[in-house]
């Protein structure tokens, strides 16, 4: 392990590695990544890996569109020899109340104005795409063909490989235990395998980003939550798009290998860093899934697991630096959608750290927005 670095990135998930690659490709040397487990051992390796551009705020539409365009060309950009299995089967969003129909109509108008070709669909139009779903209680749908799913492991490993080729050092099974700050400036990172002198740190620690903040005496407005997910046996491809409802609270998607993955958000989810699985989730999920997509009743569940969402008060990420601690950068608080933002997170954070103008302005996503009361409410999250 190097004893000094230009920057130490804490966390080898999609955010940390995409940023490491983007810094290296822009010429930064001596980049060190510290990961307490293996690459993808955090939320990235536990996520649903859905990718959508159908958002309700201009910021999220722009971030996800840019990210999606990177994913479409990722193997080429990173010279990755395998496939990231990016499937663009679309997202079909259920509108189940008048209010939701209105919201989706607004979202679609916004999306269209930003070059995202989503549209509202009638029940009949949606049934043409997914003939055997149950549309009882649904009023309308929103659909965008370019939304989809990528393999979270291959996507992240593609960044890791490209970063390594550019000289980035990735230290796995190494835990950051402390950060030395003198006169308001980062001096070094302390790990269980030694100390690294550096004046810059990127906190990309996912569900543990709040703990890293505390190492420099900062209480970040973050809340880790456990979210569960399950996967079925593989069956023949029958479901093209992701089925998703905010009001009924679920997502169901068939992956390219034929397995279905699905989850929902537990209401009033308490703060927790536990990732155990519950029987309650499996039951409730099965009920919801069969209800909207009856062919699933015959399919077998083979595995369930859980991971962490890192929530912010407005369900938007925190990008930028922390006032008062010179050299401390953060990309965390993705509130359940950090995988799809990963590719653009890497670009924007690298530009920001290098003092360049980020290609999408991220100043409104700084940590100060919570104190200023300038929260950005995203109406469309599970």
């Amino acid at each position, binding site marked *: 392990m190097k004893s000094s670095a230009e920057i130490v990135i804490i966390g080898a998930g999609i955010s940390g590695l995409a940023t490491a690659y983007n810094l290296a490709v822009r010429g930064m040397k001596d980049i060190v990544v510290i990961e307490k487990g*293996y690459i993808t051992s955090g939320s990235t390796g536990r996520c649903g890996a859905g990718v959508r551009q159908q958002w309700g705020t201009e910021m999220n539409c722009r971030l996800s569109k840019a990210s999606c365009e990177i994913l479409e060309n990722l193997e080429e950009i990173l010279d990755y020899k395998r496939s990231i299995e990016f499937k663009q089967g679309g997202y079909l969003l259920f509108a189940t109340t008048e209010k939701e129909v209105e919201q989706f109509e607004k979202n679609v108008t916004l999306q269209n104005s930003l070059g995202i070709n989503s549209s509202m669909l009638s029940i009949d139009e949606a049934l043409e795409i997914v003939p055997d779903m149950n549309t009882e209680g649904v009023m309308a749908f929103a659909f965008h063909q370019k939304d989809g799913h990528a393999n979270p492991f291959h996507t992240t490993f593609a960044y890791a490989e490209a970063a*390594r080729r550019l000289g980035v050092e990735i230290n796995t*099974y190494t835990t950051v235990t402390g950060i030395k700050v003198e006169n308001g400036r980062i001096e070094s990172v302390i790990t269980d395998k030694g100390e690294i002198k550096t004046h810059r740190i990127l906190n990309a620690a996912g569900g543990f980003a709040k703990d890293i903040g505390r190492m420099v005496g900062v209480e970040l407005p973050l809340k880790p939550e456990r979210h569960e997910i399950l996967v079925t046996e593989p069956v023949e491809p029958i479901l093209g798009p992701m089925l998703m409802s905010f009001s009924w609270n679920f997502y169901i998607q068939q992956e390219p290998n034929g397995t279905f993955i699905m989850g929902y958000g537990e209401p009033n989810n308490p703060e927790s860093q536990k990732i155990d699985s519950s029987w309650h989730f499996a*039951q409730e*999920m099965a009920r919801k*899934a*069969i209800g909207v997509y009856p062919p699933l009743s*015959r399919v077998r569940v083979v595995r*369930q697991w859980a991971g962490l969402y890192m929530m912010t008060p407005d369900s938007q990420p925190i990008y930028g630096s922390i006032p008062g601690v010179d050299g401390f950068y953060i990309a965390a608080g993705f509130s359940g959608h950090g995988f799809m933002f990963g590719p653009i997170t890497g670009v924007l954070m690298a530009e920001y750290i290098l003092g360049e103008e980020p290609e999408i302005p991220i100043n409104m996503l700084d940590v100060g927005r919570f104190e200023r009361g300038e929260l950005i409410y995203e109406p469309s999250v599970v």
Partner: protein
Amino acid sequence: MEEKTVVCRCEDITVEEIEELIDLGYDEIEEIKRITRCSMGPCQGRTCRNLLIQVVASKTGKKIDELHIPTYRPPAKNIKMTALAGGDEDEK
């Protein structure tokens, strides 16, 4: 023809493929597993797990007890959705 030694039958992964990954910088079993799906197929590692560990140890020159060995996860569930949905709370 060159003889290929198969490590994982379920996912059809050879020794050569594992060694190539190690040359690319992957020296952790957990990572190799997730790239190749080796030991994540129907057998869930029962037959290939030990082979994989041996290949990684010999190629990296590490002792087996220096490697981070994944915990063995039994093929946990195998329940039809419909049974789950109507399932009874005590069933585990």
